[in-house]
């Protein structure tokens, strides 16, 4: 599964890790994250992420 990088702050979403603080379980592909999820560092919306 691909990692995605936030274009605003550089945070990398790693599907293996997920974002458990915000209810995204490890193993969740980026595409399967709900659309209203935002970057845990800078709050940028999902469309601000690019495949790493």
């Amino acid at each position, binding site marked *: 599964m691909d990692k995605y990088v936030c274009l*605003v*702050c550089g945070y990398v979403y790693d599907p293996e890790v997920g974002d458990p603080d915000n209810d995204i379980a490890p193993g969740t592909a980026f595409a399967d994250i709900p659309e209203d999820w935002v970057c845990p560092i*800078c*709050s*940028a919306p999902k469309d601000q992420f690019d495949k790493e």
Partner: protein
Amino acid sequence: MKALQIAEGIYDVGATDWNVRDFHGYSTDKGSTYNAFLIIDEKITLIDTVKEEFTEQMMEKIASVIDPKKIDYIISNHTEMDHSGALPRVVHRIGKDTPVYCSKMGLKNLSAHFGNKINFRAVADGEELSLGKRTLQFFETRMIHWPDSMFSYLKEDKILFSSDAFGQHYAGPEHFDDQIGEAIMPHAKKYFANILWLFAPMIKGLLTKLNGLNLPIEMICPDHGILWRDNPAKIVETYAEWCELQPQQNKALVIYDSMWHSTEAMADEIVAGLTAEGMVAKPMNLRHCHRSDVVTEAFDAKAIVVGSPTLNNGLFPTVADFLTYLKGLKPKNKQAAAFGSYGWSGEAPKLVAEQLAGMDLEMVEDPLRVQYVPDQEGCESCYEFGRRIAQAMK
């Protein structure tokens, strides 16, 4: 030193840094201030602190109002050390248990700076804290300009403590917008261009969110420079405009460095060509103009033309510095071109063009090179280069 009362029971207890000229690589020709605010209520509250070396100045100002030991709460709107540097010493002085309210990211970032011995308490976006007669409400403002940034809004007095947003690096005899007038705007713009440009799309969203909240605002107190009490709406509206990143249609900037004046002569001819076609154009030499001033000018230019002589098969270092700095600011909606004088191998103009293209700028011309000192033909080719760029801008 005495604190300045800015509203009934509210004091600026910050410090003026008259002599700072380099602020993390940003030129502060007029110095700066680190504003911190003291609210006298049932709970005595300090909003932000100062750079560590100004701790005593702040403590003295606080002491001119109350015994600092009486401070009940500290609010940290932003982790960066120009506002948090004094925290450990202040907390040590007034009591180790004093709660320091900050954002969720503030908790992480303050801990990374100062460890976990301070009683940091994270607040949620929109959360309120009663000070007695008054209430503070907190708003997360991530990336204005660190992930931890937040605003504190004093509801009853309608005062927004905006941390780095709406600030300016300016030290002067004035404290309020009505005392300085338009003269403060270039400093506010420089601040925006150098610190916030890259976050403009996010700030736009934030301003929309804040507008939606319809908070009445009578005064905006940033952590640097002048406080906005005469017309606080003006700076908010100006920020909204800046966030649109709309260039001035007829403004071009020719940015260069030069070893033996050849690239300089090219720059002057390019400016003349641009001007002949009705553009507002000017050259800026990177060894004489600070990168942060060049970027301020570049912020609202429609076209930037960047020149470098070739040095040891590469870019001149000041040009590389500028391009690195500019890239980080994520410029958008601009046209660009590259030029430079060379002796034998002549790599620099192409390297400049590659970097500008890599920033997603629209390259309107192939890189222009002139060998050694431009002769009449070389000068004419630069002049025409300027004219063609102007045509592309129309």
